[in-house]
């Protein structure tokens, strides 16, 4: 049981490390495969089912630049697991080094309350909330690109931009309560 800290280790040269947390372990593998294809920088991908991370690899584990919680909206458990994992992160991570990625948001079986709950969670932590189409190859490629965009900034590889700066622009806002025609 330990807190994961953003600045406890030194960064590597031209290296970005990303941690994908997903309780169902479905989407993270395909994402990881696509992420390591990146050639401009060395991307290390770490996978976890939930936090806290085990103690044994503590020494060899690189500094994690970005933590991504993948939430499958069709499963309540997936959301609860992500929520429970959050408290094992050092508060420093919430300055732009955490993001949520949601899958299956357009599914008919998703209760709207769950999407709202995820939005509220992301908004309360000032984190970006990304939506991904995990079932099509194009969707996976796109999700990878977007994660890399954030990761490069979080790892300090983009000049003139910091993680906090970017997250200030991309963070999720309060769930929209739009007075507009809806069809459900």
């Amino acid at each position, binding site marked *: 049981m330990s807190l994961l800290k953003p600045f406890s280790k030194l960064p590597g040269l031209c290296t970005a490390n990303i941690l994908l947390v997903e309780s169902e372990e479905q989407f993270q593998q395909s994402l990881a495969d696509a992420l390591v294809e990146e050639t401009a920088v060395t991307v290390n991908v770490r996978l976890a089912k939930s936090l806290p991370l085990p103690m044994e690899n503590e020494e060899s584990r690189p500094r994690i630049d970005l933590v991504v919680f993948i939430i499958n909206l069709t499963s309540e458990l997936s959301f609860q697991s992500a929520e429970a994992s959050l408290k094992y992160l050092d508060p420093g991570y919430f300055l732009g080094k955490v993001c949520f990625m949601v899958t299956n*948001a*357009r599914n*008919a079986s998703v209760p709207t309350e769950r999407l709202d709950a995820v939005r509220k969670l992301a908004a309360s932590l000032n984190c970006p909330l990304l939506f991904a189409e995990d079932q099509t190859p194009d969707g996976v*490629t796109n999700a990878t690109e977007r994660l890399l965009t954030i990761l490069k900034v979080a790892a300090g590889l983009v*000049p*003139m931009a910091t993680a906090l700066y970017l997250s200030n622009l991309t963070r999720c806002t309060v769930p929209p309560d739009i007075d*507009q*025609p809806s069809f459900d």
Partner: protein
Amino acid sequence: MAAKLNLSGPPDSDTSSPNDQSVSSRSSNRSLRVADKERRKNEADDPFVLALKYFSDVEAGTPVYGNDDVERNMVLVEKVAYSKGLSPETISIMLEFAMSLRMGTILCPRVLKCLIPATVVPQEAVVRAFVWLGVGKIPVSTQILFIKWVLTVFDMIDAKDQLRAIYGFIFSFVTEENLCPFICHLLYLLTRKESVRVFRVRKLLELQSKLGRQPFLLNLLSLYKVFCPELVTLSIPSRIKSVFRNHNMPWRSALIAVQKRDGSQAASSISLASTIQDKTNPRKRKHCHLVLPALCSVVNKEAQIEPSSSRKVVPLVQLHSFDQLLENMHRIELPAQMGSLLGSSLALQYLDCVQDESALLRLNFWLGYALHEEFLFCGDGGASQNSEEALQFLNKLLSTQHFLQEGFSSSEAFLYKFLNVWDGSLLRPQILGLLSNIPVIPSSQIRLLLFEPLMQLFFTSSLFFKCGLMECLNNMLLKWLTWHSVYALEDDLDISLNSHTSINMTLSGFKDSVMELVDFVGRLASVGLQLEGCHSLLLSFILDFYETVCDTFLKYGLPLVVIPPTGVFYPALFASDPVSVDRLAYIMYRYKVNLTSAKSQEKEQAFHISRQTFREFNHYATVMVNCLWNSKMFQPGMGIQLGEELLLKSNVPQYWASFDLVHHPAFMSYAVDFHQKCWPGRKDMDLNSIKHSKPWSWYLEYLFSQGYDGLKQFVQSNISRQKAAGDGQGNSLST
């Protein structure tokens, strides 16, 4: 089958009412008769025909429990229903059986659930069923089920005239609290101008005071208001919270399965199994297809034949040319499936020029529903195997909107929801295309509806998305401005945008919205350029946008000038490609022309351009002239200031000249080229020698001859060169 034969038969059979299409009445054609005989023989053995016979003949009061016959026959009918769908006659028989409660109330829901039409639903059967509904023995839940069924198969009912004839009868059910939402939906679909009466409006208002502002009542009332604005004085919110719910649970998927199988003959036992599974799990939806229905007539055959009919209507499908459309404009019958309008340019022309808003309302309703079902509420979570279908559908929708030159309000509402769950790549060109068509949003809502979701997408997505979004926002602005210049009224105070949705906006409201949009793009552009390292592709799209912005006054008559932020101006000025600098020069030139013209008209036309805008422009113009022309970079009072020691430390020789037209990284290669051409013999290159009066003007000529017209216009409008070259003046627009 029977109906078709009847039509092609001899004239005398036309006079017989459709109800007694008994086989024996067709007697003239010998071969037909033989075929009939054959068929009857087959039918006699067919257990399905026997089952139908059982249901049509069964006596009232026959017990259900322990009755093996009814169970066996029921299973037979269900099997046919879920595999092939039921013929019109079968539907009549089964509906009659169910609604008459001949075997009690238990079987009724079960029968209703399997009423899946193969082709059409006969109108008479529905009317009869409504009559049974009036008898009052049917439990409420079954009554609701029946109306839901009617709503689901509404488009497949072969004619609507008799249903419209009993409008008042159907309306009377509105007082039953549980039925009310569904009845309202049905009435919404049936309402015509003549059905709107004072007493009905009064009844609905009375209900509204009792039940509260229910969306279903509001929707029906809004339709009434469209038809007869003088009868409905109630103010109806422009955006009603929710339109009618979907009542498709038990039938929709089975219906689609049946229709799909009809379309593609690849029927197999597997799909049969899957439809039956669907039935056991009604919540599971199948992807409904987005294929646009063909334009088809719904007008009853008798109505066409009867010449004495005073209200003769002409279905759109019978019209083939624009002339015909013009002749029949006043008596056009809209198709039952409004979606079919999208495929026909004639129908769109009708939509565009007709004042009747009910057509657009119905189309919007259908469209909103289809978009919601297909893209926001997918059965399989969006693993769209039918992405080809979705693509074609959206392309069709886009071309329709281009044809009409305005967006549909339902696609607008859909987009606001979709942007919140979009991953930024799914159907990107189509979504961005639809987005650029949305009408002006009031500035109070624009942030929430548009900016928040777009900002998150923009900053987390790739460069190409950023460029795509810039292009989309540029198109959006162009359309808004065009609408303004077309619809702005004479007195310039009130513009009504988007004639059909009748959003009225004051000029200042419109200006606020445009301002918000331009500011938003300015923010996106500044930070986007910073994050992408001033990528020239992105810069080019951003300059596209500002080419629109700089001409708002002269081209579109909008008294509003917004100057680009520093985050756009400086990256463009110091860009390493000459095209960007040239375009910036053109933009600054247009700003100057717009501002001078606005300044001269300000007095007579009573508008005001902020002095701050002039000041900002003058500042930029001075910076540009100083930097490109006068070689006076980093002077105090300019946008960029660096400490003297720091500049010396950098060891750049003549740092103040490093961005003039000779040394600017974008033009350096031209300077070198010019130098070689001008002094071919010289061994050592001295670019500074270009700055002498004569070579300088030659150099300018040389640059302009390379196609840098923007630069030329900028120089000609801002710099007066009576005196020695290199002694240009700053801009002289006083504030």
